[in-house]
């Protein structure tokens, strides 16, 4: 494996972390909650895609994959919105720790429901893409890697356009910055929060399908690790800042890949969590995080 290959592998896994990190950071930005159930939304997405692809045997596999992606997005979006309405909204005006503990509870609930339905054992994720690697000069890059990076980057560009160009996207930014002032503009805060959870969950669903395509074994607790790493990516980039989550995701992926390649694959996770400790010690607001100052 050349250095460039390691970097590309890092960008592959990093783009998935980035997609998931966007959900953490958007939700944190708007309700100041670390949504610990976000990782388990990945699991929901993977199981949904797995069920759909196993059921739709008659179709070509890539058509099945496409339908599975859409289904995963739909199911995850529904989960995200319902979880917010049922579990977090009633706690919106209480202490923050209450919602945080609830998020951990929701996470455990989702994992246990999945164990009841699908058993606690791992299941294979159907392999949908059998395309030979693409050769670029001396290098060969797997098709899945190219697809993952392309889809992720397109989704991120789409999200940036959404929050800067559309009315509801701008409302999301307004609510993130000042909820009361946003209400005084006539913005429905509850609707805006629901939209935020919906988008974050849809991105997690895409991340889930791409993740499981690369690592095709799924298990009810599978969301924990990528979820945690994506959370660290969000903190590294600056939680609440969208480009920060993207940057953080890519950096985390590359750091992990280089560690796996040049030190030892046993050190990959250690380096990732080491990054969290360093960020919290050196720059807790993250790379792109900003300290807002008030003008009088």
């Amino acid at each position, binding site marked *: 494996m050349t250095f460039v290959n390691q970097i590309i592998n890092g960008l592959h896994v990093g783009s998935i972390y980035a997609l998931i990190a966007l959900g953490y950071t958007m939700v944190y930005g708007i309700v100041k909650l670390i949504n610990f159930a976000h990782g388990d939304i990945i699991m929901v997405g993977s199981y949904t895609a797995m069920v759909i692809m196993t059921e739709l045997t008659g179709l070509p596999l890539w058509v099945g994959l496409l339908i599975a992606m859409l289904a995963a997005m739909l199911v995850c979006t529904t989960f995200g919105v319902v979880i917010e309405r049922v579990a977090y909204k009633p706690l919106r005006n209480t202490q923050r720790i209450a919602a945080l503990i609830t998020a951990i509870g929701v996470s455990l609930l989702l994992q246990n429901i999945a164990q009841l339905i699908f058993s606690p054992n791992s299941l294979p994720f159907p392999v949908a893409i059998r395309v030979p690697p693409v050769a670029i000069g001396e290098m060969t890059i797997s098709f899945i890697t190219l697809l993952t990076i392309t889809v992720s980057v397109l989704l991120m560009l789409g999200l940036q356009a959404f929050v800067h160009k559309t*009315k509801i996207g*701008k*409302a999301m*930014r*307004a609510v993130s*910055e*000042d909820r*009361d*002032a*946003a*209400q*005084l*503009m*006539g*913005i*429905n*805060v509850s609707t805006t929060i629901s939209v935020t959870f919906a988008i974050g969950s849809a991105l997690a669903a895409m991340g889930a399908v791409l993740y499981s395509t690369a690592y095709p074994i799924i298990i009810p607790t599978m969301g924990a690790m990528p979820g945690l790493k994506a959370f660290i990516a969000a903190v590294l980039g600056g939680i609440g800042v969208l480009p920060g989550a993207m940057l953080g995701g890519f950096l985390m992926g590359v750091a992990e890949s280089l560690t796996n390649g040049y030190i030892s694959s046993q050190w990959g996770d250690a380096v990732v969590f080491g990054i969290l400790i360093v960020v919290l010690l050196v720059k807790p607001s993250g790379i792109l995080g900003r300290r*807002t100052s*008030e*003008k*009088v």
Partner: protein
Amino acid sequence: MLIVKDIQVYYGAIHALHGISFEVQQGEIVTLIGANGAGKSTVLKTISGLLRAKSGDVVYTGKSLRNVDPHNIVKLGLAQVPEGRRIFQQMTVLENLEMGAFIRNDRAEIEAGFEQVFQSFPRLKERRKQLAGTLSGGEQQMLAMGRAMMSKPQLLMLDEPSMGLSPILVNEIFSIIAQVHQSGTTVLLVEQNARMALSIAHRAYVLETGRIVKSGDAKELMDDDAIRKAYLGH
């Protein structure tokens, strides 16, 4: 137009408003004056729905606002310029104004709204692409007012528009308030700067520790000895 009936408001255990009643007629400029902590901002927040009264009622054009959400109160034609401006610092000037027009959908009308705001505040036009957080304090106050005007309110409520501004800027802001009023908007003005507020208003209410202690014609209050001593400094 607006009737506030005996509202009692609490912040947790703190009793902030002890039965406030007043009204604003269409076409008036009414001011609530009083010292820091008298409860002036609390009154405005209760009217706009950010705070709820424990008892009493707020009635706007015959409709009780008791169970109306803040974002729907705006749609009834009430806009508030909050204390401390509360502009969206990470958004551009133009985006802030767009948020002000959130309840409106007609693109042409919104564009006309921009033009109107830029006419009142030419400085905002120059800076329309800038992040609002980079504006000076005075410009931020102008933006906060422009943003509220974008919803085309029938009743505009302003909370301490003079706060932290130089005397020249205060004069500028108050002349804009007078213009907005002349164009047909009713104004409810909360101010610590009693002299400026009384000079522009038709009627005034004086708030002290959560109670209205005096009310009347603004000119008469300006000549009232007790008011002069307490709020006008001589």
